[in-house]
């Protein structure tokens, strides 16, 4: 019996067309646009000036608070401007623009580091290294990892959960990483288990990634404390709370964190970044990005430097195909549709999806027929039709008491609605207003 979460969930088609494509190294970008806010929390503070020469891996913006992190230059080059460049939502945000030095040795050579299994740092040094290296949750949430790993005294940590689920259709970045860097990821897990400390780890992988499951099973054959759990393919299995429920049958309490049930969850990409930072002192400068789409000439997975403009990626895979109507930064269920390919790749970009006419348009909105499908699929046990109604009518107090703030914005409700109602749009809006009202009360 495959493990799964019991409440809600949907089964969109996987469309994992790039799952067999080995990760290629993306060619060096000529210009790198690095936003200062790529993570949840306070934007980083710029510490370089225009015309300054920067080395690869040099800190160009430093952490400006507890929930913040460092940002490193992904290339060696010169800072050309500190300008406002368009982000995924179409608003211009402060970025550091660096022109790559195409002749610099550190840019041209890409060292393949051998596997290093020995852990030489102390736990304190490990956490400091993670904090200094600018590592954030690479699953898409971009929460600074060192903050997540700082366990308060009153909470007991029992298990480390590794999220290798990648439940979003089309995306295969984590899948390929798990196949190609299995040993490194396991060392990364051991590093965390030593540092936290915790004596049990479970790697959760969905059943459609059989080769990754096999790879991990063989590498962890002799590891007593690291288990591999195979999960049923269901969206949103990759959500933290649903993952903990499926693997450990524990429900994170409402408005709580996985730490409340003794668990901390990390994405495989984050674990790999931690491995590189701790073992070789390499800060977070690049990540795996899936560039995909049914009509693309050459959909692929790439190691991309943070700050590479998306238009470079599109050009590399053969250009925008005829009839493209939507470009999505992320997966089709939770990603953001972008209006310009000038938007740069950030730490949270797991994929670029090119959608053509037949799938791009929303259907026409009709009346709610009270079919109850949205209630049936909601993994958090909410009633989306009611929350949309309350948000529309401005009944925010009632929306709060109907637990609108516990919505994880997975999109399952809008996906199934036969009347094409924009349920998630209104729920997000309601959440904003309710959050503001709650903050105003305090």
């Amino acid at each position, binding site marked *: 019996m495959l493990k799964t979460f019991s409440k809600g969930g949907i089964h969109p088609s996987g469309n994992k067309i790039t799952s067999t494509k080995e990760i290629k190294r993306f060619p060096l970008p000529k210009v790198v646009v690095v936003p200062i806010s790529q993570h949840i929390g306070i934007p980083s503070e710029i510490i370089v000036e225009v015309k300054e020469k920067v080395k690869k891996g040099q800190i160009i913006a430093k952490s400006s608070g507890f929930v913040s992190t460092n940002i490193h230059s992904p290339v060696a080059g010169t800072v050309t401007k500190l300008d406002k460049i368009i982000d995924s939502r179409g608003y211009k945000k402060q970025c550091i623009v660096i022109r790559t030095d195409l002749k610099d040795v550190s840019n041209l050579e890409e060292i393949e580091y051998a596997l290093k299994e020995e852990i030489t740092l102390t736990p304190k040094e490990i956490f400091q290294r993670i904090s200094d290296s600018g590592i954030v949750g690479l699953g898409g949430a971009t929460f600074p990892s060192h903050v997540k790993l700082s366990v308060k005294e009153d909470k007991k940590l029992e298990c480390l959960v590794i999220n290798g689920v990648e439940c979003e259709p089309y995306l295969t970045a984590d899948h390929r990483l798990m196949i190609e860097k299995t040993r490194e990821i396991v060392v990364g897990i051991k590093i965390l288990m030593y540092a936290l400390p915790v004596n049990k780890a479970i790697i959760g992988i969905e059943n459609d990634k059989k080769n990754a499951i096999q790879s991990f099973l063989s590498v962890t054959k002799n590891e007593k404390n690291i288990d591999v759990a195979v999960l049923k393919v269901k969206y949103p299995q990759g959500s933290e709370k649903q993952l903990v429920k499926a693997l450990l049958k524990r429900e994170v309490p*409402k408005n*709580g964190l996985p730490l409340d049930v003794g668990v901390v969850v990390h994405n495989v990409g984050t674990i790999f970044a931690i491995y590189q930072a701790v073992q070789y002192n390499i800060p977070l400068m690049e990540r795996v990005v899936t560039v995909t789409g049914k009509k693309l000439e050459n959909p692929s997975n790439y190691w991309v430097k943070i700050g590479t403009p998306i238009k470079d990626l599109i050009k590399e895979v053969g250009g*925008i195909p005829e009839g493209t*109507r939507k470009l999505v930064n992320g997966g089709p*269920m939770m990603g953001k549709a972008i209006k310009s390919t000038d938007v740069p790749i950030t730490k949270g970009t797991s994929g670029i999806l090119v959608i053509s006419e037949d799938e791009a348009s929303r*259907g026409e909105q009709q009346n709610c*027929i*009270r079919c109850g499908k949205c209630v049936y699929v909601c993994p958090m046990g909410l009633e989306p039709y009611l929350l949309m109604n309350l948000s529309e009518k401005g009944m925010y107090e009632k929306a709060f008491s109907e637990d609108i703030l*516990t919505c994880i914005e997975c999109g399952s409700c809008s996906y199934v609605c036969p009347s094409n109602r924009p349920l998630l749009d209104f729920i997000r809006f309601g959440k904003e207003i309710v959050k503001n009202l709650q903050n105003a009360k305090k």
Partner: protein
Amino acid sequence: MKNLPIIVSASPHIHSEKSLKKIMYDVVIALVPAFLVSLYVFGIRAFIVTSVAIISCLLFEYLIQKYLLHTKVTISDGSALITGILLAFNLPSGLSIWMVVVGSLFAIGVVKMSFGGLGFNIFNPALAGRVFLLISFPVQMTMWPTAVVNNTTMVDAVSGATTLGIIKEGVMYGDTITSLSSKIPSTMDMLLGVTGGSLGEISALALLIGGAYLLYRQVISWHIPIIMLATIGIMTGIFWLINPEHYANPLIHLLSGGAILGAFFMATDLVTSPMTKKGMIVFALGIGIITAVIRLFGAYPEGVSFAILIMNAFVPLINHFFKPRRFGTVIKSKIM
């Protein structure tokens, strides 16, 4: 970015294949077997009543939306079509055309449109239309043509009665069930549809086929039909065991009257049924109990229509009390 502009919208950017039209047309397909049986048993009149009901429902919805409310005309979504078919299925085939039209006007105009249109009505329009006609024209609404095979004439309704009607009247006058058994159709007849009754409710088999199709297509879930029929069966069964001469056996109750039609097509109407599975169970229990009580002790022989309408009125309350469990909470028997 060639030709047409890039679209920007909020996530999710993909959608399931489910759509309103698909759901509605699935229901229409599920009703086809019952319609064919009614044609076979009641002949051309069945066709006339059904098509008049459909056309007048569509026409009234069009007129009201376009000229009275000045909103978008949505007759192509299929909901008025279904209301027309279901209304017709609840009427005797001998009903006058103008009565069918009046029933359609009530169903669409009063029960559906005046509440706000699709998705806003509290009561099932077809059932409410049927009850309206029953109360307004009680004589014509209880004149059942005898079931004659290969009926191709337009002869006026000859007074044959439904199974339940025979039983109710007989028992009131002191007959025992055994003495009535010659007058009521056999189980096979009731399954196939060679019995008196409204257009749609006669053939249990055809309706069960339609119901199975709806379950297969995931348009409805099993909770309401199974629990409703089980409740009716159990309640009538208990009384039949106590006094088999006074109360008919549960099989007769399940196969005759509007029980199966109601269970699979009327009670499961998406708009007027509860949103959660727990709520549906309570809803179905209520319908089953009320139907059984009316059939066993009430003045009317058939109770399904009234039972469903009464429980429709409770649905907002059911939705309020039977909410899904929120993830991360423990149910402490909170009723608020």
